């Protein structure tokens, strides 16, 4: 019984160890940067977040708006028209995602380090994908409304570009993360970059590619709803005109249906995701 205690005491005595401090020491410059960032955060909160008075004043207005929204519009003719608009929204989202994913695959291949057949050119495609991603979807929608006109085509093109920005990046990362050993093994017997893509990279990265695609689809459905606000087709257009014309019963019906459709799509993509392994 006493033996372990004795030996542990011995252990403590025998090892006189200098122990480092609990927290890493922060250089003065870093400290200054942290203080600066903190100050910036506090200042921004002060400037743009709502003051308590404004929130207080807003509460009755919320109730007032809800009062005017309820009950949602149930006129069958209106609902049928909204049904078609919702369908158009889904079409924009799905068609845009499909084309976006199809275009993302070669772009991701060309931009993936080590896997790209271009020795130096990969950064060019990485840059293109970054450009697509950093410009927000509503800005793309405005650009396409101006160039191809109002309507669903502008919306679809926006989703395509947005999907390339998203999938182009994550596809490339999935490809770069794919198993190296089989790639070396096939390179050693003279397989081309394209053959290695087809036989190793794509099969190995497939679960990740499918997951990313499903996320892209969810994202596309959410953004296709708002694209209508700038005239790029879909249910968003109806929502905007309902608000513009103070038809709040209609607006609430539209919001409810958007909510339901987004939930259904997320449920479907979740099920699909479970299937991939």
């Amino acid at each position, binding site marked *: 019984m006493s033996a372990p205690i004795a030996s542990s005491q011995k252990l403590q005595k025998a090892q006189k160890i200098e122990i480092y401090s609990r927290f890493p020491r922060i250089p003065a410059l870093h400290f200054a940067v942290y203080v600066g960032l903190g100050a910036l955060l506090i200042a921004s909160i002060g400037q743009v977040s709502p003051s308590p008075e404004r929130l207080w004043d807003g509460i009755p207005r919320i109730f007032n708006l809800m009062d005017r929204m309820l009950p949602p519009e149930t006129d069958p003719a209106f609902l049928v028209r909204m049904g078609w608009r919702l369908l158009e929204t889904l079409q924009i989202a799905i068609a845009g995602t499909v084309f976006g994913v199809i275009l993302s695959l070669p772009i991701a291949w060309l931009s993936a380090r080590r896997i790209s057949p271009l020795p130096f050119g990969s950064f060019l495609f990485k840059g293109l994908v970054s450009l697509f991603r950093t410009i927000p979807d509503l800005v793309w929608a405005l650009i396409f409304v101006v160039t191809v006109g109002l309507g669903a085509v502008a919306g679809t093109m926006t989703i395509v570009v947005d999907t390339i920005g998203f999938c182009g990046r994550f596809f490339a990362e999935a490809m770069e993360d794919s198993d190296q050993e089989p790639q070396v093994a096939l390179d050693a*017997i003279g397989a081309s970059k394209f053959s290695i893509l087809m036989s190793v990279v794509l099969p190995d990265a497939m679960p990740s590619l499918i997951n990313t695609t499903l996320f892209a689809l969810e994202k596309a459905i959410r953004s296709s709803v708002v694209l209508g606000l700038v005239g790029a087709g879909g249910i968003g257009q109806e929502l905007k005109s309902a608000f513009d014309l103070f038809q709040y019963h209609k607006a609430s019906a539209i919001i409810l249906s958007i909510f339901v459709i987004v939930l259904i799509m997320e449920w479907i993509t979740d099920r699909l995701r479970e299937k991939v392994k």
Partner: protein
Amino acid sequence: MTSPDPVLSDNTPSKSISSELMSDVPLSDNSKVMAPILRVQNLKKSYDKENVILNGISLHIREGETVALIGSNGAGKSTLLKCLVGLHENTDGDVEVLGTRFKRTATRQQRHNIRKQIGFVFQNHGLVKRLSAHTNVVHGFLGQKGSWRAFNQAFAPQDWREKAMHALEAVKLSDKAKDRADSLSGGQAQRVAIARALVREPRLLIADEPAASLDPASGHTVMQQFVDLARENNITLIFTSHDMEHAVSYSDRVIALKSGKIHFDKPSGEVSKADLHGVFDQ
């Protein structure tokens, strides 16, 4: 560092096979008659300025030989194998493989000429985990002309699919054809990798520690199948191993690397325990 103790049992399994083979492959120096499958002259290789990994290697390997390459960790075995097929840029020297001769770097065309005639087996099989054993074997056809369809058995020409099945049969795994590679044991996966190398009908087969991650029993199975298949198909085989029993019993000839040079190069039957100890001495 403890130097590994070479295990050398006297009743090594395939002594008889190797001596049998040595009778019809002359080891005396009349090799000019037969075209060398591999000829290396004064090969030097260093990755950086300080460390010279290979410092003047010369060898001559004839068609149909089975050669074991041994040496301590970092001796440069893997480096040598890669230099032979132009996977690395050589620092100096002259390499001739399967009729293609290059000095420091092989041109794209030369690399292609070499690689399409060889098979390469790596220590960790290098199979695509999410694909079936059969598809992985079909991948062996890649690198040959018009081979892009070999990315999956479903799209490959029928005779490639058949040949791949035969190769799986040869390593006794045809019942696992449809199983995913990640469901196979280490030994089975390594045998699939061997099938993938054999299906190409290579003239030269290079294997870097093909049995290193396997338990002793599967290690012997894999090595035995490997050398038997290579001999049946008259394939020249070069393999590296840290298992001295494998190196001596499954080869016709042992080449030992030490300090960037060839320490010895002998018929397997003449390799003594002292020779092997000498390889790993500091």
